[in-house]
């Protein structure tokens, strides 16, 4: 009898302890519900209405999937999507390619390159600077008439015909892609390198003793082991890339001729969500959800691609 009350007592005391869990998680949960969950659901609700300009205390008028139909039929949205894919695609290929090459150089068992800690600091530096500062810096360096790039090229090659880097279609797209690469390749390199350093030296030595050459070691051991990291880099880069905004938004004015060739999906969204005179809140909400669905589908596809069984 005494024993059971003791256990009961102990149990109630444990529950009392565990109730602290509610207290500790409460500030997070309350803020999360207000500032994370509610806005996401609110945007979802708005995407089914006909709301154009937001005013306080106005009632919502639901019209079903009409805004989504508009999104799918919009040539401008499709073009913004194509722009995003081009700018992101060129960037991810060069960025991952460069990071991959660097990873190969620094992990090579034959050449044993030194100075990794210094090189990676320098390679990573551009990633920390605010995109606003980088965008303003390059829009000045790449200006057609007074930009330092053209000034230098003209100085070296007197016959050089000035390229309007940000004022013509492909140079503008590629400039933004390569600036993105410049900002992000150090980040990808660090991640790949962390993956390689996670590969146990024992594996490599064992393989080497068994007579495997460095290319065999690279292909059969290193590569498969860093595949999850490649996937992580590709997916996070995709999610970031689909939301590309600061850089093109600040580098190309909406009055510029190239605007329609570099307008990303996020710039398109911003234009309708917050742009002066172009605000259509409900439509912008539908754009946001469409964008999310696209990101989701592509992420899942990437996940399946990187996790596929090799036969």
């Amino acid at each position, binding site marked *: 009898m005494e024993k059971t009350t003791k256990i009961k007592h102990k149990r109630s005391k444990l529950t009392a302890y565990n109730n602290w869990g509610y207290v500790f998680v409460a500030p997070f949960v309350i803020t999360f519900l207000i500032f994370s969950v509610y806005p*996401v659901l609110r945007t979802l609700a708005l995407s089914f209405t006909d709301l154009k300009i937001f005013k306080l205390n106005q009632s919502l008028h639901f019209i079903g999937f009409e805004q989504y139909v508009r999104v799918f039929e919009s040539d401008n949205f499709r073009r913004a999507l194509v722009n995003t894919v081009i700018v992101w695609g060129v960037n991810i290929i060069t960025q991952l390619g460069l990071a991959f090459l660097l990873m190969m150089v620094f992990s090579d068992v034959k050449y044993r*390159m030194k100075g990794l800690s210094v090189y990676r600091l*320098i390679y990573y530096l551009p990633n920390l600077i*605010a995109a606003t500062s980088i965008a303003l810096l390059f829009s000045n360096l790449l200006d057609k008439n007074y930009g330092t790039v053209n000034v230098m090229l003209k100085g070296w090659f007197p016959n050089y015909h000035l390229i309007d880097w940000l004022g013509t279609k492909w140079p503008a797209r590629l400039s933004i892609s390569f600036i993105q690469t410049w900002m992000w390749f150090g980040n990808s390199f660090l991640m790949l390198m962390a993956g390689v350093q996670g590969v146990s030296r024992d594996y490599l030595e064992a393989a080497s003793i068994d007579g495997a050459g460095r290319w065999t070691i690279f292909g059969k051991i290193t590569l498969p082991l860093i595949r999850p990291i490649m996937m992580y880099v590709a997916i996070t880069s995709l999610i970031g890339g689909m939301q590309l905004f600061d850089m093109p938004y600040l580098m190309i004015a909406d009055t510029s001729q190239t605007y329609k060739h570099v307008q990303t999906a996020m710039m398109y969204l911003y234009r309708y*969500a*917050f742009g002066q005179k172009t605000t259509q809140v409900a439509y912008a909400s539908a754009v946001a959800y469409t964008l999310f669905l696209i990101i989701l589908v592509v992420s899942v596809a990437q996940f399946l691609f990187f996790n596929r069984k090799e036969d």
Partner: protein
Amino acid sequence: MEYKAKHTFGYNLTKFILYVLLTALAVLCLIPFLMMTVNATRTSFEIATGFTLIPGKALPDNWKTVFNYFNLFKGMWNSLKVALPATLLGAYFPALAAYALAFYKFKGNKTIFWVILIFMMIPGTLSLIGFYQLCAALKITNSYIPLTVPAIAASGTVFFLRQYIQASLSPALIEAARIDGASEIFSFHRIVIPIIFPAIATMSIMGFIGNWNSYMLPMIILSKPEKYTLPVMLVSLRSSTDITQNYGAIYLCIAISMIPIILVFITFSRYIISSVSQGAVKE
């Protein structure tokens, strides 16, 4: 038994070329900053007609032009007023929640964890419009509340710290403290926080930099120039003809805007590099 292998000429040549290429890439990373720094000391005419590595003499003039138009240090102060509270709130409360989720058994624990996991995959884009309307309804636009308080709900931090606590905190420690009569919150402050501090520190540095550099949200939330954070203020220079006609002044603005983050990088580079690397390995 170590022996020095004799390397062929080809081996040494390849190695040399690799170093040259690596160094060239490093130069490519730094050269835009170098151009910026030199140009910040030159006049518009000098900038438009040629480039040298020798600094010019126009720094004081450029400085005057910049600070006649706006006070960049005010922007830095505003950025600090946003980034510091956001970082502290975004470290303390998520750590508390992570501890609750990792250590206490209560109803809804699993549910909260799954909701967090789902929300980590939702891009910020989705909440932007609803978030703005919420802030407008609460009449907190043009204040720093929308830029700081929501940091409490940093679900990524909760997720990461929960894993970290499960791996590094032994429940016996907390139970022993209970027997000694320690309160639960005391245990959190005196036992849990010291153990997970390395993780909190790395996340906080990256969080601070992210908040400091953030542009889109402050731009949407803040419309009064005296509230502008550094990135928003920097962009506003485009509406000043005084500055936009003086290329040296533009470069000077950009250069000044980068100084704080470069100082942070120099101070904390070790933590920053390890945090980027950890981010990959934890997956």
